[in-house]
């Protein structure tokens, strides 16, 4: 039987899953499951052990009313994604007419439900299991006792019913999918199953999220009413969302206006865009009110992250590209230069941060101050300096910018990442076919025009990749801030991630820290999507 074609395919599939099993288990355990788990933890008060369910209270503590608003947006995003998937599914069904497509879509829906039932069961089981150590604490913690408790948790009320439901769901899904592949064997059907399963999961998850948000909002409003206050979450939701939609629309109209050829059209569209943007901005005036009850340290963390990213990413990409372009010229010692530029990136950040700590010390004779003295600038307090660049230069408040201590950290990050960027840019430059340059030169293009019209567009995938990596890197930045921050600068250099870490390490508030981490995740997700849409359109994939 194993020598038939079907048998060989079966063997190949089984071997592949066997090969994947260790990596798959670990990735699910340490890669995928944590995201859902972080969300789950964030809905609870949770110190060392899970405590009571508190709904979105942690989010309200982090972001004020905006916490609720954010969840509406997330639910909306989920619906949109599900809608887009369903459209893709529909065109797929209409375009090709392979046998068994309708049943494949149905099987996908059933599998999606089964997956949701598994998740549901799992998150009912987890808190019960997590409480075992507390129950057996003090008693003789033997394996037998533990296993007994472990077994009990599977049949505890709630978990047991969910477990049975899950088993039924899984069985149905397996039967349906198995029958499908028995009847119509084709890879296209497999993709259809996965597509519609994802769609179903997304749709139901969004419904769940929306229901949760509405419930929680009502609860919060009622609680406020009992205390004689009114909580204008709904109006804030409408105003802020409308503001953002208007601004996005304004951007869209403005773009069209800029491209318009006719003068009158141009004026009208640009004028329309600008006035829409102003309207949107005025509606957004509600945003500060929605954020009134937010955690100031967290907001400061986001602000630091934004400054940090906007101060390092463009600089490091520009210098990296310049170095790569120079290295790409016909020169000697290219591999030597490449090797040396890479050194700051690979050496341990702890060690190099310590060197920078000494270089940018506040002392009169510290290396950085020595260098300033060479050009006649008075010594600075660098890593101990709380005042912002704007203060030091005597600029008005709204141009304050980052604290000088943060500038040191920005210099450090730029220094470490330039070499990495240059090496990747160099590889990107090598991938551009030489004939293009030659053709351009024959057409009489000069250096700058070649760079602008051939190198840059063909390099845009690399630029896109590197800027994404760099921005995600700013959210990940930890070591350099940990080493380079001093007590004197307070929260002026703490990015959101560092603040979350502090909150976790010092006060063990897992629930609250999780909610902040999840907000950060949502922001990064939104930003990546946005960047994909805005920049992705300009990226040229040869």
């Amino acid at each position, binding site marked *: 039987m194993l020598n038939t074609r079907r048998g060989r*395919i079966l063997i*190949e599939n089984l*071997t592949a*899953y066997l*090969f994947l099993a*260790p*990596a*798959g288990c*670990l990735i699910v*355990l340490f*890669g*995928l499951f*944590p*995201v859902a*788990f*972080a969300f789950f*933890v964030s809905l609870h008060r949770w110190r060392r052990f899970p405590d009571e369910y508190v709904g979105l209270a942690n989010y309200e503590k982090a972001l004020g009313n905006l916490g609720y608003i954010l969840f509406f947006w997330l639910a909306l995003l989920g619906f949109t994604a599900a809608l887009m998937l369903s459209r893709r599914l529909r065109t797929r069904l209409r375009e090709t007419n392979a046998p068994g497509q309708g049943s494949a879509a149905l099987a996908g829906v059933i599998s999606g439900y089964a997956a949701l039932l598994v998740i549901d069961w799992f998150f009912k089981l987890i808190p019960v299991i997590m409480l075992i150590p507390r129950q057996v604490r003090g008693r003789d*913690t033997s*394996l037998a006792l533990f296993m007994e408790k472990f077994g009990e948790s599977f049949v505890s009320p709630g978990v047991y019913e969910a477990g049975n439901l899950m088993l039924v769901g899984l069985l149905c899904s397996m039967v349906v999918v198995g029958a499908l592949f028995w009847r119509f064997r084709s*890879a296209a059907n497999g*993709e259809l199953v*996965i597509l519609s399963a994802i769609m179903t999961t997304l749709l139901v998850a969004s419904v769940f999220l929306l229901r949760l948000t509405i419930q929680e909002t009502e609860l919060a409003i009622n609680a406020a009413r009992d205390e004689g206050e009114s909580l204008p979450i709904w109006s804030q939701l409408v105003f802020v969302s409308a503001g953002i939609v208007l601004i996005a629309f304004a951007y869209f109209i403005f773009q069209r206006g800029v491209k318009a050829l006719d003068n009158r059209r141009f004026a009208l569209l640009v004028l329309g865009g600008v006035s829409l943007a102003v309207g949107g901005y005025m509606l957004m005036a509600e945003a500060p009110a929605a954020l009134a009850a937010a955690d100031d340290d967290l907001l400061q963390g986001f602000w630091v992250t934004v400054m940090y990213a906007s101060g390092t990413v463009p600089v490091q990409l520009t210098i990296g590209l*310049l170095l790569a*372009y*120079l290295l790409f010229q*016909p*020169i000697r010692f290219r591999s030597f230069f490449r*090797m*040396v*530029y890479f*050194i700051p990136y*690979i*050496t*341990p950040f*702890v*060690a*190099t941060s*310590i060197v920078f*700590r*000494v270089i940018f010390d506040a002392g009169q004779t510290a290396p950085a101050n020595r260098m300033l003295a060479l050009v006649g600038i008075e010594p600075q307090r660098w890593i101990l300096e709380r005042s912002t660049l704007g203060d030091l230069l005597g600029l008005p408040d709204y141009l304050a910018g980052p604290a000088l201590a943060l500038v040191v950290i920005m210099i450090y990050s730029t*220094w470490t990442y330039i070499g*990495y960027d240059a*090496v990747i840019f160099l590889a990107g430059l090598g*991938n551009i076919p030489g004939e293009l340059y030659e053709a351009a030169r024959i057409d*009489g293009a*000069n*250096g*700058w025009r*070649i760079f602008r019209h051939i190198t840059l567009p063909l390099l845009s995938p*690399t630029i896109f990749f590197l800027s994404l990596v760099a921005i*995600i890197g700013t959210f*990940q930045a930890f070591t350099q801030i*940990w*080493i380079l921050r001093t007590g004197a600068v307070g929260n002026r250099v703490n990015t959101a991630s560092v603040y979350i870490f502090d909150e*976790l390490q010092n006060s063990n508030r*897992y629930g609250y820290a999780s909610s902040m*981490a999840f907000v*950060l*995740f949502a922001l*990064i997700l939104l930003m990546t999507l946005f960047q994909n849409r805005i920049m992705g359109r300009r990226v040229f994939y040869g």
Partner: protein
Amino acid sequence: MVSDAAGMAPPVTGKAPAEGPPKQIDWRRLGIYAVLFAGVLIAVGPFLWMISASFMTLSEVSLTRLLPEKLLWENYATALRRANFLDIELATDPSSGVLQSFGVSGYIWNSVRITLITVVGSLLVCIPAAYAFARMKFIGRNFIFALFLSTMMIPGIVMLIPHLLTVIWLGRLSESIFGPAGAWFNNWPALTIPFFASVFNIFLLRQFFLQIPMDLWEAARIDGAGHPRFLVSVVLPLSKAPIMTIVTLGFIGSWNALMWPLLVTINDDWRPIAVGLSNFVTADTPGDLNLQMAASVITVIPILVLYFIAQKQFTEGIAQTGIKS
């Protein structure tokens, strides 16, 4: 930058640029070298001063001398001891002089152990997975691969708390099975197992495995070899370069790790070098800058040596993944 880019364009001669410059002083190329050497100076300047400062007296460091008056090698011995980097205990039998016990401890030793476990575990887990993605056909391959890749985009801080809870809880589970030795928290499993299944490694290996000619597989199959056999006896011997890259990256990764070990270690039993160095420096403020520099040099040296050995594969490995994703 604009003018630089314009200035360095190859001359419009209609010749290919590779044919070499004219035989006169080429100011453009001189300019290129000047910029590149300035870059070298900025890249390695802090290192050079770090090495120099590690040999100085404290007052020389605080006055920012460029070179020490006298090379104080004892700074290194003091730093090693004070920072608890390495401690080797040899107990010999007083009568016969035979070695009785041999104990190594300290942060360097911890980091070496962690690195070894991580790298070996990672190879064992990632190679089969990468092979499956590159060379086998199975249902849901693209979907699973996309799912794996998507985990790379999730920022570490989001995972921190669930990782911590998972590790604590899995540790309790294994403790109740294996006793205290099975603990995860403040022990090697918490520091290594979460990093076994590195999506980056899987991706790197997969890209390499895809390049291995299909003919080899056909030949092996005719000889009666299955996938496991082919993987072990044909693919692995061919894949020294990516494996070397993974070993190097794994080494650097565990040598650098700070945030996670800060959370999951509570004493020096398994605490890695980055945490040790960080604690040494932050506990020592403003402190003995020369010793701090010496400790930093000690931390940097193994990485630099490894980098110089594996430099070529390493930069190319990085560049390739950067281009292809």
